[in-house]
């Protein structure tokens, strides 16, 4: 096996990706599917904005609107944002810690396929009788009332993909705990690795709550239990708690890696080490920790009582402090630096004021008594798009551009990148700034239309215009990808010139074993340390030797496929005769594949020393 990609047939390439356990290829899989779902979610957003452009519009019907709105939120959060984050994590984290691989390559692949099948299952609802329509929060009373199978698609799809997410989280945690290169202490880890670590820990503790919530609601809908049926003693507030115990940490799962991305990009293009590294780490951990204490701020109007509301309000406000620390640290990283405005850097710079605005409206929302006014209005919609789009989506644009060479060995076009930025940034503020006022002026969220004469016309049409800018920007971005793939020039090691961390110490893209010799880390920003001593490369920590590699496997795909089949069976159990057999068959497929996995020994294979040296001469390293 050589690292140089030989020309292969399409079938062979597909098979390669179906069976791959290489974190770099899995990153690409995540990127492609996440990117696809981003387009789908974006398309849904456009439909939302078109429908709301003018009062009393009948572009889409009321029921359909609720489906679009639900799928927009669900798709964006679970199927676009998280996988895109995972794409970056997979592509970068093992490299940043100087590892040859992740801890569980097999599980890594399993995590991806579970997410993938879950996402496909969820989206099939569009073609099989209607999408879920109770909002991405799927509050229990409405979800139980909702006819058809939409909600069941939501429940089963998220259950399957959530399992994948959990597995991915554990995998990153163990990778970071056990696989760091010699010298890479915790306090020398790059910030993106740190935020991956904390975000993965949040996944580990938050997703089980979602799992339980989804399971209970599924039992209620499909098997007649009564967790959420007040007539039988059930209680819908249980769902609200379970959902938000998951849901609030979830938003930090989204934003922390984004913080990590910016913490990588800003130092590189300021040519300065991250200001206040240890306080950044501390703030990250603290945000993660506080993230579990504040979920009830989504339930201020549920009627939990003033004591609970006051406690959760104050706890929520506390998160402003560590986040503020981060903001100032970024600013002071640039202070005294020499800033080069490449596309990733422009996104990062623009992120600071944008996210700040979203963050401070978060603190306003945390003021419980005032939240009675904001809650479930467009003010909230404005808040979370400012933090999610202005934080995470900016980070994804920045990170994908920044690490494109790491993933594909080419650079995206800078000019097109800047055009994307200007359009998106303009459109973004146009769309969402005005929504703060729409909310305050009395516009509830999740409305499929609004009536004329309530002073809401102007704001909505402005908002819609802005969305079109974002759509054009997105199209330019994808055009950029196509152009780059076709025409882009191959680049070598450290294409941005000022790389500081280990992913820039190897060729772009790296060979399949990443590091021929595990590097010796001698400080924070390991590559920078070497560069400052006039070296071009890392000092190796070991002599060249055989490299152990895991075998590819189709089993993750099959395990996930089995659960996909089970989901259909559960969904149609009462409608069709094949429902029950499908459940059984699906489980047999899944358990059978798991059984095979556990009885067939898999010791992997070795790449021999000689082949490595060979690679070197062929130019595997630049």
């Amino acid at each position, binding site marked *: 096996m050589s690292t140089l990609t030989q020309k292969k047939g399409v079938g062979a390439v597909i098979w390669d990706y179906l069976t791959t356990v290489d974190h770099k290829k899995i990153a690409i899989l995540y990127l492609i599917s996440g990117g696809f779902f981003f387009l789908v979610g974006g398309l849904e957003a456009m439909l939302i904005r078109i429908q709301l452009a003018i009062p009393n519009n009948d572009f889409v019907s009321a029921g359909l609107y609720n489906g679009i709105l639900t799928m927009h939120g669900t798709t964006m959060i679970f199927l676009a944002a998280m996988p895109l984050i995972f794409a970056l994590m997979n592509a970068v984290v093992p490299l940043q810690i100087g590892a040859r691989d992740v801890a569980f390559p097999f599980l890594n692949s399993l995590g991806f396929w579970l997410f993938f099948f879950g996402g496909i299952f969820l989206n099939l609802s569009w073609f099989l009788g209607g999408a879920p329509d109770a909002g991405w929060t799927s509050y229990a009373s409405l979800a139980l009332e909702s006819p058809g199978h939409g909600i069941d698609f939501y429940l089963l799809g998220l259950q399957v993909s959530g399992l994948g997410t959990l597995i991915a989280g554990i995998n990153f945690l163990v990778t970071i705990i056990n696989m760091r290169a010699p010298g890479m202490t915790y306090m020398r880890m790059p910030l993106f690795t740190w935020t991956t670590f904390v975000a993965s820990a949040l996944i580990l503790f938050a997703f089980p709550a979602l799992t339980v919530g989804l399971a209970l609601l599924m039992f209620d809908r499909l098997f007649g239990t009564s967790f959420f049926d007040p007539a039988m003693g059930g*209680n819908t507030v249980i769902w609200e708690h379970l959902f938000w115990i998951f849901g609030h940490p979830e938003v930090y799962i989204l934003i922390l890696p984004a913080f990590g991305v910016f913490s990588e990009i800003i130092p590189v293009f300021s040519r300065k080490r991250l200001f206040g590294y240890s306080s950044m780490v501390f703030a990250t951990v603290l945000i993660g920790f506080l993230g*579990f*204490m504040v979920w009830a701020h989504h339930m201020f109007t549920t009627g939990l009582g003033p004591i609970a509301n006051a406690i959760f309000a104050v706890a929520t406000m506390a998160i402003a402090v560590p986040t503020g620390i981060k903001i100032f640290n970024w600013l002071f990283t640039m202070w005294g630096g020499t800033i080069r405005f490449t596309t990733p850097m422009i996104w990062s710079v623009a992120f600071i004021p944008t996210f700040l605005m979203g963050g401070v409206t978060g603190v306003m929302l945390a003021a419980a008594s005032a939240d009675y006014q904001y809650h479930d209005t467009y003010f909230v919609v404005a808040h979370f798009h400012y933090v999610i789009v202005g934080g995470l989506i900016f980070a994804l644009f920045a990170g994908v551009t920044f690490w494109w060479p790491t993933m594909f060995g080419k650079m995206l076009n800078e000019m097109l990148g800047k055009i994307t930025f200007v359009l998106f940034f303009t459109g973004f503020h146009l769309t969402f700034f005005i929504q703060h006022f729409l909310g305050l002026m009395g516009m509830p969220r999740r409305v499929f239309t609004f009536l004329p004469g309530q002073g809401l016309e102007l704001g909505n049409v402005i908002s819609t215009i802005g969305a079109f800018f974002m759509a054009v920007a997105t199209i330019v971005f994808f055009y950029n990808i196509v152009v780059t793939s076709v025409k882009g020039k191959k680049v070598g090691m450290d294409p941005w010139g000022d790389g500081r961390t280990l992913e820039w110490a190897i060729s772009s893209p790296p060979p399949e074993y990443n590091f021929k010799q595990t590097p010796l880390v001698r400080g924070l920003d390991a590559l920078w340390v070497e560069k400052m001593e006039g070296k071009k490369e890392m000092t190796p920590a070991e002599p060249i030797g055989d490299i152990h590699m895991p075998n590819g496997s189709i089993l993750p795909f099959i395990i996930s496929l089995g659960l996909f089949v089970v989901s259909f069976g559960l969904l149609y159990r009462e409608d069709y005769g094949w429902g029950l057999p499908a459940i059984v068959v699906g489980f047999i497929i899944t358990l059978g594949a798991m059984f095979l996995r556990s009885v067939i020994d898999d010791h992997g294979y070795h790449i021999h020393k000689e082949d490595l040296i060979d690679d070197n001469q062929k130019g595997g390293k630049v």
Partner: protein
Amino acid sequence: MATNQNSGNPNVDIAYRRKKNAEDMKHQVVTFALMIFLTLIAFVTVGYDGIELWFKVPFIILLAVIQVIFQLYYFMHMSHKGHETPALFLYSGLAVGLITVLTFVTIIWW
């Protein structure tokens, strides 16, 4: 690696380790006896009418907590070296779990 406790002389090592393992095992049997004992107390507490309710519930929960600590530290070897990370994550999980339980018994009252 901290996990490798071999001294280099296999025969010394094995004798030493056997002894140590046997000692561990002895602890574990004692632990087990204590756990059975605690369980018995818990059942008796509940069955015995002379004890006030306000006392029973916290008391049996306390017994359960002690038992679980035994399980974790002896049966699952959390007392051994190299369990810092497992302990950290287990306790974090427990903390999240406890907050959850706490809210569910306080602010869902209707």
